[in-house]
């Protein structure tokens, strides 16, 4: 690299422009690749972009904080996006009213199972406190999960990755589990996938059909709220000093 190029790199590496642009470019490339390869859940575009960007930062010796100075403009939008989840939730109000009892009971059962199973299994296998707290909100959409993790003493950025891996797990293996326990009701199928694996699961549930997709979206929104309320209370109760 000539001295000129090097001084340009030194300049760019320190501006927010590079982190922001790299994020948008990586994501769109990952999405194009994912579409070309038949939208398989294993090649999730979020996972691909994270791997590509982490690799790029490592190779160029850029630290995460410098990258985040630029990427924070994208990250900030998680707040308003969470607020906007009220819109799909509002659209499902009719369906919600019709199966209110089943929805509420299944929601609480699923929300508690998600947190307790994750923390219980990891605790039994000797995970540290920070990892346990980062795992607890793993089943809900990232903006909410990160907020909860921050509140209960987890690592929000670790939670973000765990949330994405959880979504991929649910999308890949969800229908297999549903077949195993012989649940064929599309409302229950969609709701279960949405509770356990948020938006990435919802994308998979939409492929099962309109009813499963709608109930998965509903479950994702409701479990976001349920987890935000229940997990900090469970943690306070289970880990009292």
């Amino acid at each position, binding site marked *: 690299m000539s001295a000129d190029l090097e001084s340009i790199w030194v300049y760019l590496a320190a501006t927010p422009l590079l982190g922001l642009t790299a994020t948008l470019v*990586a*994501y769109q490339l990952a999405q194009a690749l994912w579409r070309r390869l038949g939208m398989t859940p294993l090649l999730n575009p*979020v996972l691909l972009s*994270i791997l590509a960007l982490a690799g790029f930062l490592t190779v160029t010796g850029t630290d995460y904080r410098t*990258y985040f100075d630029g990427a924070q403009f994208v*990250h900030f939008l*998680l*707040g*308003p996006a*969470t*607020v*906007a*989840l*009220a*819109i*799909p*939730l509002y659209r499902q109000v009719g369906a919600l009213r019709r199966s209110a009892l*089943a*929805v509420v009971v*299944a*929601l609480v059962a*699923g929300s508690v*199972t*998600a947190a307790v*199973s*994750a923390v219980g*299994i*990891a*605790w039994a*296998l*000797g*995970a540290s406190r*920070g*990892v346990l707290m980062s*795992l607890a909100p793993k*089943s809900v959409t990232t*903006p*909410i999960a990160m*907020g909860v993790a921050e*509140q209960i003493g987890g690592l*929000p*950025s*670790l939670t973000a*990755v765990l949330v994405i891996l959880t979504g991929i*797990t*649910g999308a890949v*293996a*969800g229908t297999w589990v*549903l077949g*195993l*326990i012989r*649940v064929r009701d599309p409302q*229950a199928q969609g*709701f*279960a996938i949405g*509770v*356990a694996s948020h938006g*990435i699961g919802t994308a998979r549930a939409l492929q099962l059909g309109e009813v499963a997709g709608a109930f998965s979206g509903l479950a994702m929104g409701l479990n*976001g*709220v349920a987890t935000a309320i229940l997990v900090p209370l469970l943690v306070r109760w289970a880990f009292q000093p």
Partner: protein
Amino acid sequence: MVLFYITLLLVCQLAGEVVARLAGLPVPGPVVGMVILFLGLMVKGGVPADLDRVGTALLSNLSLLFVPAGVGVMVHLGVIAEEWLPISAALIAGTLVTIAVTAWVMAALGRRP
């Protein structure tokens, strides 16, 4: 009007932060903001077209918004390498158990007329 609804989302988020802190709620501010907007939509009885446009723009690119935080994994590679067994067991078994329990409860209750 699009600008108005972008502002509305931010105002809901801000109000959510204030309410969560004032009331000492164990819930992230944006979640309270979501509840506030939800109640607003119930009162209004519909989703204004421009709000729908703003919401769709944000939510259709929702997965992009996860990326910057996800890249933070590079900071935690040490923890993940050290605790890969509990982490992967919790992720896989925990998620599958959650799907099974939720689906089973919902199907059992839904069968009743």
